[in-house]
């Protein structure tokens, strides 16, 4: 991209300013202040003291509870990402290979309309489904499979199922894009060389969709690691998840500095893992495409 001669590019710079100013005030500054906040001491009444220390980090890392919460959060996020990838394959494959334009539009609507609905509603739907007098229990009882209603809510399994359903579109779309960019001659070449469908899938299709899968995994992982609305509604307050702890510390216990410390910890760990996956993606692209 070459710069225009004469006059320079002052105009785009001018246009960049409002956005940058906004982000400076409301993304950068809060971030910096949050870091500062996490280092402020509090007294017994949780009022801010003028002194700074690492007390909050120390108490967090010394407490088994927070380690468990962090570990569970990451584990749940990774599991969600893996499950999403697994389920994304049939969905993406169907999306890419369907001949009918009408059916493809239907699939897109099913994939994208949840993204435009509030997460609280998507979570609520699961409550309606899984509650004691919800739909699943209703159907199972009518079918005679069970006598008493099952307690399907208020556990981590329900949270993960809800996570997968909420975040699945974020895994399907990049995978579908990746799949579509594979030249159809490649699987044909594989067949012509004697490979069956399974061999072709594992040795040609799967490797070539690694960038799409990693994109999806990064998004799902980041979303799952930071979610608190869904697990609160479906899993209950007692789930050992760090975002829930942060929410409780900030809005219910009002220990903002501790909440800040926990947030930054979560942010750093999430960013590190996401960054690692992103690096793998770039390495793969460089190996296969040269850039």
């Amino acid at each position, binding site marked *: 991209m*070459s710069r*225009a001669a004469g*006059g320079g*590019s002052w*105009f*785009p*710079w001018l246009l*960049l300013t409002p*956005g940058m100013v*906004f*982000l400076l005030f*409301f*993304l950068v*500054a*809060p971030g910096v*202040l949050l870091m500062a*906040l996490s280092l402020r001491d509090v007294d017994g009444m949780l009022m801010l003291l003028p002194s700074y220390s690492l007390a909050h980090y120390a108490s967090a890392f010394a407490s088994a509870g927070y380690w468990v919460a962090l570990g569970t959060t990451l584990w749940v996020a990774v599991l969600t990402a893996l499950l999403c990838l697994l389920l*994304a394959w*049939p*969905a993406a*494959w*169907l999306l890419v*290979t369907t001949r009918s334009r009408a059916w493809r*539009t239907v699939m*897109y*609507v*099913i994939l*994208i*309309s949840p993204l*435009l*609905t*509030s*997460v*609280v*509603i998507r979570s609520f*739907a699961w*409550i*309606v*489904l899984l509650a004691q*007098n919800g739909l699943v229990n*209703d159907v199972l009882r009518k079918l005679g499979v069970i006598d008493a209603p099952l307690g399907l809510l208020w556990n981590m399994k329900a949270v993960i199922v809800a996570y997968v*359903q909420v975040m*699945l579109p974020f895994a399907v779309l990049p995978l579908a894009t990746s799949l*579509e960019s594979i030249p*159809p001659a490649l699987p044909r070449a594989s067949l012509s060389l004697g490979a069956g469908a399974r061999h072709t899938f594992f040795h040609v299709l799967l490797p070539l969709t690694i960038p799409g899968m990693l994109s999806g995994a990064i*998004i799902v992982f*980041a979303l799952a690691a*930071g979610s608190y609305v869904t697990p*609160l*509604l479906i899993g209950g307050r007692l789930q050992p998840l760090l*975002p829930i702890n*942060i*929410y409780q510390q*900030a809005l219910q216990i009002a220990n*903002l500095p501790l*909440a*800040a410390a926990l*947030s930054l910890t*979560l*942010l750093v760990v999430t960013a590190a893992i996401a960054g690692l996956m992103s690096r793998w993606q770039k390495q793969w692209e460089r190996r296969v495409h040269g850039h």
Partner: protein
Amino acid sequence: MATDHHDTNTSGAGGAWRWAGVAAGGLVYLFLLLPVVVIFLSAFSPQAYPQFPPASFSLRWFRAFLDNSAWLRALQVSAWLLLIVTPLTTVLGTTAAYALARLDFRGRELLLSFVLSPLIIPQVVLGIALLYVLTAAGLAGSMAGLAIGHTLVALPYVVRTVSVSLSGMDRRLESASQNLGASQAYTFTHVTLPLIRPGIVAGAVFAAVTSFGEVSVSLFLTAPGTVTMPVRIFTYIDQTFDPVVNAVSAAFIVLAVVALVIIERTVGLTKAI
């Protein structure tokens, strides 16, 4: 090319695999659709809980919504926010996207990632950070605070859709305009903007829908006087069970589909995400 992938009438046993794949894919889409089905069943069910198969059809929960002043107030708050946030985000996002597409400097990719970062930063972190800053500024719990939060979350969507439109646009049209003597500003308003209108419209729709449905950051920024619809739904589910929520949810979903249609007509679904 998409059509080539559809030419799979090979000889031999490929057919069995294909049917298995279609079945698996279909099941996944049904799984995705499940909550929507449930909500619609509930919203129109005369009982407080959904029936399957549905026994009868009723609009009582929609009526109950309109009768309840608390819900109507929440609707008002959400609507006002939407009217403020959408134009604000659209302007900020469009200008930023344009600038990033036209400038060429070393940290450009990094800056673009930075602008898109609210998508990936855990919203609980965004919520806390904003809460702290707004409290210090005395804006905690105000409409202004909420507007700022919504704009922050919606901004990446606008930047993304406008960037897609920009990359599909023929830049020579801008050169031609300047060649004919127009200033950069004039070119921008009279040539570029009309050409990227689909991306702007899609971005605006995303911003509106995102603001209307935003809850994760809003929970940190609301006060009793500024309760939005999603926040109210959250507290309601948390504390009681009001079937009106089903009706509200159904309405949300319809809105989402309408928004989708608009996005598809302007930018095209495949490119907007």
